[in-house]
């Protein structure tokens, strides 16, 4: 009975304050979309880092079947060349710059590739043979990349030496900048959302002061009196969060999945399903936002 009563009160409140409720929905929607966008950028950065990014700085790719680089004129890397490279890496001249290194075989490379590109159709058309084996080097000082590059580039069996970090780091700093902007916008919009929720609840409490006054007099509990107001704000915020989650999913599905991933087939993008992991966080954030701001408002404007 009481639950039914509270639900009825909420329904009535939402209807009576429809325009305010719609604005609460829209403001939380926009603010949470920006929060989610920041989250998505971070997910995307992680996705692009792949298996090796946080572990090593420099990769020495070895010649494969179809390598066209000058050093690969004699065909794919041989076992002997590979051993020589390993010896060279362990020699004191090089080892002083190296923390440690790992060998990634074609099969390992395929495995890691499959993980990183699990969202992309490209994964089906790639075989282990197409991927080069490599030495992955963790440098004592990443700035000393040049020394490794000079020592190994001309070695037989080496296709190329690259400093992975340098390639990605510039991109990441752009993306981190974008995340920061998104977070700032989200912050401003969140303040708007909190103020708007507070105003809505205040209006709602004012327009129902007769009811709440009577409820108080006949001994309704604080919960019964306050819950409809709080839930009114929370429901609006949850709808806003759901819209934000839907928007993020749509961006991942249509923009990343259908458009960008075709433009940049060699980049790993996050999947729409991954963005849905953000949804519970957004909904939770919306609930906390609306709940606390309406509780604080009620404490001032609704005597119980």
């Amino acid at each position, binding site marked *: *009975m*009481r639950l039914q*009563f509270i639900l009825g009160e909420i329904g009535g409140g939402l209807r009576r304050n429809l325009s305010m409720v719609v604005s609460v929905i829209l403001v939380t929607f926009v603010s949470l979309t920006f929060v989610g966008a920041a989250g998505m950028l971070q997910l995307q950065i992680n996705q692009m880092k792949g298996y090796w990014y946080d572990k090593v700085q420099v990769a020495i790719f070895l010649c494969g079947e179809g390598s066209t680089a000058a050093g690969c004129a004699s065909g794919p890397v041989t076992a002997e060349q590979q051993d020589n490279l390993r010896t060279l890496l362990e020699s004191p001249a090089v080892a002083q710059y190296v923390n440690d290194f790992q060998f990634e075989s074609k099969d390992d490379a395929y495995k890691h590739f499959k993980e990183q590109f699990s969202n992309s159709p490209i994964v089906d058309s790639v075989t282990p043979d197409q991927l080069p084996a490599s030495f992955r080097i963790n440098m004592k000082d990443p700035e000393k990349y040049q020394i490794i590059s000079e020592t190994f580039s001309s070695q037989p069996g080496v296709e190329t030496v690259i400093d992975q970090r340098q390639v990605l780091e510039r991109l990441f700093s752009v993306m981190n900048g974008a995340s920061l902007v998104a977070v700032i916008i989200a912050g401003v919009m969140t303040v708007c959302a909190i103020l708007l929720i507070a105003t809505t609840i205040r209006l709602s409490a*004012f327009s129902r*002061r*007769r*009811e709440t*006054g*009577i*409820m*108080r*007099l*006949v*001994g*309704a*509990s*604080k919960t*019964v*009196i306050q819950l409809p107001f709080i839930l009114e704000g929370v429901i609006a915020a949850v709808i806003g969060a759901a819209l934000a989650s839907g928007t993020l999913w749509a961006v991942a599905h249509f923009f990343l999945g259908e458009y960008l991933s075709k433009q940049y087939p060699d980049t790993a993008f996050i999947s729409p399903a991954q963005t849905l992991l953000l949804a519970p966080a957004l909904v939770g954030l919306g609930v906390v936002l609306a709940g606390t701001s309406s509780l604080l408002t009620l404490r001032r404007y609704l*005597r119980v």
Partner: protein
Amino acid sequence: MIRFENVTKVYDQKARPALDSVSLEIDRGEFAFLVGASGSGKSTFLRLVLKEDRATSGTVHVAGQNVANISSWRVPRLRRGIGVVFQDFRLLPQKNVFANVAFAMQVIGKSRSVIRDTVPEVLKTVGLEGKEKRMPHELSGGEQQRVAIARAVVNRPGILLADEPTGNLDPTTSMGIMGVLDKINQNGTTVVMATHDDDIVNEMRKRVVELKNGKVIRDEARALYTSMMPVVGQSRRLKDASGRDETADSGGQAAREQAAREQAGEGRL
């Protein structure tokens, strides 16, 4: 049922207390009128019973409990034991008669079947059978007040507080309302009614507690609106009670203040 011990209530440090060391006991099942000029503290007395405000000093006991010791989350339980009726009825305009009365049961979680059984019974007690479906604006003032009384007593409170319930009604209608209150009192409910209506008080011949400037200046059983004591004795008592001579104008001042407060604090009950 209600016991005040040296209760003083000060709203404003600069003004005189709204209630000044009031000691009073109202027994279970009693019917008592609270009379006195505007600003004499009648509504304040009722608000203290409801724990709408806390006494500045002294203790208020309601149904055997010191209300100062009731924690805020248990105040609703105190209020379930007390029905309240006001001069301005305070019905919900979008709800019909049945729904207005049922509202008081819904918000404390009574089941639908209990509500279906109880509400018509109470409406019959207040003389409104057959008017369940009417909206408040389709009722006369007297009928609206009956709805308000029905709502106040539907949860069977032990105490009914009425703050000038006949203030907006003509004498005949007022007597009808008094009949309802008397009936509720006969059923065992303690009734405390603040009023300015001398005809009613004289007609009913119940206990009369008279307040002046926050002090009890008279407490008589089966009494009239104005004291039957000799004029000389009364004026001496008044002087003693208030401690100073009140001019007629200061009473008017209090009334104006009261009106201003009522306008400002619309949401306040």
